[in-house]
């Protein structure tokens, strides 16, 4: 149960110069204990303070010395009281000696467990390491550190130091600081120790690993470079999102007096036939179905098992490629890490050679991974080098999952350079943007990187644990507001903003933002074209939008008419003008266009009617027959159109009317012209609806002529 039990001693510097950051120290330690209470209930913790006026530790009683070190809590299994102790730790009055504290902590661990205890033993030191250490009775401070380190190695005790520096440390003696830093550095060179410098309250909250998770390998086996070369590797998770602890559903049904009630809620699933909701189907009678079109294909799990894709467990190299071929945004998941199998010297060297060569050449490796036998699919991923800067840590490779062809959605977007000039920043604006990007700097050269993910705590989790502890004391507690140090994660740093006020003001001055009051119903913009089809159109659409938006400023009325009415018809106008009536200049073309318009059947009737009146107009207004040719042209077109549209009566009636009209208005020459051009009525064989037999059609003008003569 408590296989991975850990014993931890917190060594906290409470000296005067630490007072400013002690609230954060309290918080981060409390968080650590709160998490232990939930996840690692059997872990043991002790708390040692140094820099106190008082002295209270066993070593001072036994051998003397070790002043100003107080054992606040001896090592014991975590409980709620320990968390309460951290609500307010006593402030000290004298500068602390961290070496003394380390020795006291180590002594506690040794006395408690001796060499037999196999669990993990850890010392956690939080100090500013600013005060001069006492000189040892014999030898140098370096010798002393070496002795302690050796002892720690023997006892398998690990040391984690968080050194508070930068803006948090205030003025300090440079020499003392350097000496102390070197001593702490010496630990990391001699034993399992690591030192972390933090420069902001936020990163102090993120400096301690508050939850210890037993590392589990995802894969142990060969990285197959080729069939002839296999490197033994272990694969672990490098990142994995830490979530809220699992909350259970609460039931208040059991009486409050029932001490043994679990208060839990069970979730029960029942399967009922859709056709017959009364019928409950037992779980074993269910069968999985997958959709295939509108149908569902039942597939028994046995059958599926027999035919499904079954890759063999293996990690195979596909090849190397230039790092630039893998864009950062293609990383799909949390990250794994490939470490050579510990203890295998050659494997460690091989991974190291690959990592360093990859770094040198700016290459990455593509691998195909099946972590477990029976895994449902394969994973294609990229290995990138992680060259270690610490001597005692082997080189390793990061693994990021890459997408398959099916996972990529190829949506098209307009090019920025194709956007109209109104969207392009001017030189002045570009400069303002450049300055902003340059000056709003979170990683200034001389200082520690701000909001480094490795040192940034999750504000939501911090708040959750804080609230949890408050609720344990007072069930009616309200959600606490966000700690100042945590606010710096979610909001811009006010100091950084005020430092760069001029840059920001200039940026604001250069660019103009205006709320779009006439915000159109967004349906149109949602209805974008499918991928790959016409991105052209989209650009045009964007242009249109841009233009209409510009107009908004000046003449609102125009804009409304222009864009809101019919965005699509406006587009088509560009290519082919829409004809709505027949004009004088190109009556035939207008008529044809109207007939071929199919958005409404009315256009045909309108066209015919329009052309008829136009012909009459031509004939009537003709002076010495100067418009006759135009009229004939139109009549030919009308005839053609009426045949096509199967409207023979319209034409036949009109021609007959026209002849009568001409005769009545002394325009007989027009009728003659019709005869000469061989214009006949539309016959039954041309259009079924015509009631004019072939002979009659031909004789139509002849008889008329005859009558005239």
């Amino acid at each position: 149960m408590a296989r991975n039990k850990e014993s931890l001693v917190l060594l906290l510097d409470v000296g005067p110069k630490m007072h400013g950051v002690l609230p954060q120290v309290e918080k981060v330690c409390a968080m650590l204990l709160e998490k232990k209470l939930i996840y690692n209930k059997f872990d043991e913790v002790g708390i040692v303070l140094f820099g106190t006026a008082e002295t209270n530790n066993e070593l001072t009683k036994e051998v003397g010395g070790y002043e100003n070190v107080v054992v606040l809590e001896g090592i014991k299994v975590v409980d709620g009281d320990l968390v309460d102790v951290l609500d307010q730790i006593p402030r000290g009055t004298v500068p602390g000696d961290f070496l003394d504290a380390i020795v006291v902590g180590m002594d506690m661990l040794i006395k408690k467990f001796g060499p037999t205890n196999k669990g993990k033993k850890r010392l956690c030191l939080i100090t500013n390491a600013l005060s001069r250490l006492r000189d040892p009775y014999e030898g140098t401070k370096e010798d002393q550190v070496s002795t302690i380190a050796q002892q720690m190695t023997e006892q398998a005790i690990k040391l984690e130091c968080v050194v508070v520096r930068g803006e948090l440390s205030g003025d300090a003696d440079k020499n003392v600081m350097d000496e102390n830093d070197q001593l702490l550095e010496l630990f990391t060179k001699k034993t399992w120790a690591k030192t972390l410098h933090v420069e902001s309250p936020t990163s102090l909250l993120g400096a301690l690993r508050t939850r210890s998770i037993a590392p589990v390998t995802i894969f142990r086996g060969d990285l197959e470079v080729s069939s002839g070369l296999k490197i033994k590797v272990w694969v672990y998770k490098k990142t994995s999102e830490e979530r809220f602890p699992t909350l259970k559903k609460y039931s208040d049904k059991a009486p409050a007096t029932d001490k043994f009630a679990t208060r839990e809620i069970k979730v029960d699933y029942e399967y009922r036939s859709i056709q017959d909701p009364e019928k409950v189907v037992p779980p074993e009678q269910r069968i999985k179905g997958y959709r295939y079109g509108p149908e569902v294909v039942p597939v028994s799990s046995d059958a599926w098992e027999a035919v499904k894709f079954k890759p063999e467990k293996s990690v195979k190299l596909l090849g190397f490629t230039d790092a630039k071929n893998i864009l950062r945004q293609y990383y799909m998941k949390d990250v794994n890490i490939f470490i050579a199998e510990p203890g295998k010297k050659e494997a460690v060297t091989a991974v190291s050679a690959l990592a360093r060569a990859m770094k040198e050449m700016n290459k990455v490796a593509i691998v195909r991974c099946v972590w477990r036998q029976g895994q449902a699919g394969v994973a294609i991923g990229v290995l990138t080098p992680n060259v270690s800067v610490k001597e005692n840590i082997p080189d390793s490779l990061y693994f990021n999952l890459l997408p398959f062809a099916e996972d990529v959605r190829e949506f098209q977007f307009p090019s920025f350079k194709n956007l109209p000039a109104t969207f392009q920043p001017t030189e002045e604006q570009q400069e303002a943007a450049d300055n902003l990007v340059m000056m709003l700097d979170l990683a200034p050269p001389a200082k520690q990187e701000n909001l480094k993910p490795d040192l940034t705590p999750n504000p939501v989790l911090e708040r959750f644990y804080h609230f949890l502890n408050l609720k344990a004391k007072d069930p009616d507690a309200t959600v606490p507001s966000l700690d100042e140090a945590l606010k710096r994660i979610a909001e811009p740093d006010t100091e950084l903003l005020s430092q760069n006020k001029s840059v920001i003001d200039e940026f604001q001055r250069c660019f103009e933002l205006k709320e779009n009051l006439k915000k159109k119903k967004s349906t149109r913009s949602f209805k974008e074209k499918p991928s790959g089809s016409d991105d052209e159109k989209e650009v045009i659409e964007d242009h249109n939008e841009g233009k209409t938006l510009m107009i908004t400023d000046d003449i609102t009325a125009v804009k409304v008419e222009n864009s809101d009415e019919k965005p699509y018809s406006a587009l088509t106008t560009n290519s082919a003008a829409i004809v709505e009536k027949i004009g004088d200049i190109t009556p035939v073309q207008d008529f044809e266009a109207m007939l071929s318009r199919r958005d409404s059947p009315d256009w045909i009737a309108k066209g015919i009617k329009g052309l008829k009146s136009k012909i009459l107009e031509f004939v009537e207004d003709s002076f010495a027959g100067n418009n006759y040719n135009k009229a004939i042209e139109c009549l030919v077109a009308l005839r053609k159109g009426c045949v096509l549209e199967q409207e023979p009566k319209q034409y036949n009636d009109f021609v007959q009317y026209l002849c009568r009209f001409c005769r009545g208005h002394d325009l007989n020459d027009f009728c003659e012209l019709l005869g000469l051009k061989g214009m006949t009525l539309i016959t039954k064989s041309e259009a079924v609806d015509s009631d004019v037999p072939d002979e009659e059609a031909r004789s139509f003008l002849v008889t008329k002529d005859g009558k005239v003569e």
Partner: protein
Amino acid sequence: MELDPDEIFGDDEDDSQPNLQERESSKEYVVYIVDASPKMFSTTCPGEDQNDQTHFQMAISCISESLKNRIINSSYDEVAICFFNTREKKNLQDINGVFEFSAGEDGLGRPTARLIKEFDQIEESFVKKIGSQYGIVPGSRENSLYNALWVAQALLRKGSAKTADKRMLLFTNEDDPFGTLKGVTKLDMTRTTLQRAKDAQDLGISIELLPLSNPDRHFSMSHFYADMLGLEGDALADFIPSSIERLQDMKDQLRKRMFKKRRYRTYSLSIANGVSIQLSAYALLRPTVPGSITWLDSTSNLPLKTERSLICADTGALIQEAPKQFLPYRNQEIKFSREEISQIKRVSTTQLCLLGFKPLSCLKDYHNLKPSTFLFPTDEEMIGSTKIFIALHRSMLRLRRFAVAYFGSSTHPQLVALIAQDEIISTRGQIEPPGMHMIYLPYCDDIRNTEELHMDVTFTTPRASNEEIQKAVALMKRVDLRDFSVCQFSNPALQKHYAVLQALALEEDEIPEIKDETLPDEEGMARPGIVNAVEEFKLAVYGEKYEEGESNNISEASRKRKAIAGKAAQESANYDWEDLAENGKLKDLTVSELKFYLAAHRLPVTGKKEALISRILTHMKK
């Protein structure tokens, strides 16, 4: 707990509960029009397996593949298939020479397994049932092409052009459909057919031609089809080569569920001093999963519905109201209401809040948790957003910096990195759209210092020497995937899934083999140059003693296991197991005695005594 509260991945929603509106706007209505004239049967071209294939067969197999893809990719599409130049007629308008193929219901419909199955078998019965004959012949006023277009247009009358893309796909090998005619009739028919096509296009229907040609006779667009499709100049010159490609594409198309371009959210990015710009967010990368599971009753194959009920574990009472949640802590049950939980998560009120910029080198390879989200500016609500975005985008690209912002989602707030991506265009079109990618950053609690696990306290961690590194460099130069692109592989598991599903649905006898493209190129790796490079690297790192497997270095555990087995075998020999088993005396032995037998025979030694005995008996085949 909440795996994806923000629905960032929610657009992979189950088909069982589709968003109606989205489905409406993203479907396609397609009528496949196939020329069935005798010429389609008499002209052949080399098929896939070297056998000659008639053009008709080619068209059929192409449509069949296209249907099989469509049913998986976008099964809400509706299709119909029309043959023209047929002897028999079958269509709503009852006009000659056009035969509408259907399985079950007439008209446009979603592709079904039955349709695909019957369509696959159409060739055998085609001559008998439908028949092929030239529809456009001198002396007749029939115009089968015109008729086919008309029938197709009538089929596509369903639904509005706004909610669906309507298409006609015409397969023919006749480049001059009215070539047999002369004079007025020819002109007339050409004209009416063109008009018919234009009518269809005016109604928002696109007509696509898939010309079938063979090496001896090229399909000439100039006779008729250039006019019908309105092609001119370059578009005309490019048409034939591109249409051959399209035909191939139609067959080889990957089976993947298609997603229409759809932004899933709009964010406002607050920069500073109240300057806030509008961004649209798109999910360009999301893991695709095989379709959702529908539970069926195995006796009737009818769908089941799942009912969830909450039952109090203490009293068995049914709970109706949404319960509070609790966590046991410090010997109490700490209760949380939903409001409290959401209040805890409400860290920031702004959607995206810019915090500052960092050089790209600060973004490490392990700073990743889930797929990125793509951001593109929009001026829809805030005029001027695009301009600011473009300016920042340029600066970030030029200065090689990324932005850090706080993503204040109400359910899953997170720190994010915004990296600017310049547009990348190739001859195939846009490869990377311009915009920014939002990368979700881990917190310190999410990062594990796994490297430190195997910290070497003796400080003798091996490091590769320069020579070894150079050998690795040489190897790397040999095994270089020059044009590797991230999405060049299709997912073998997914493709297999679809293949199995198709085989089951269509009752095919064998399940098509799926090529696993993700396997290493064994042949390439066996080239002497590469083998040499590998050997040299191996020699440099491992020396002469490289041996595969565990043989030279048995792990602690396995040595221990072997020792135990050896000892057990000795002990086990002291018992007459056969005799004990015969007389049922095994139960008189102690558990540790029983374990001697089990260990000696490499059987599991876990479980209660009865289990151990029965395991021994099974092993002895009693």
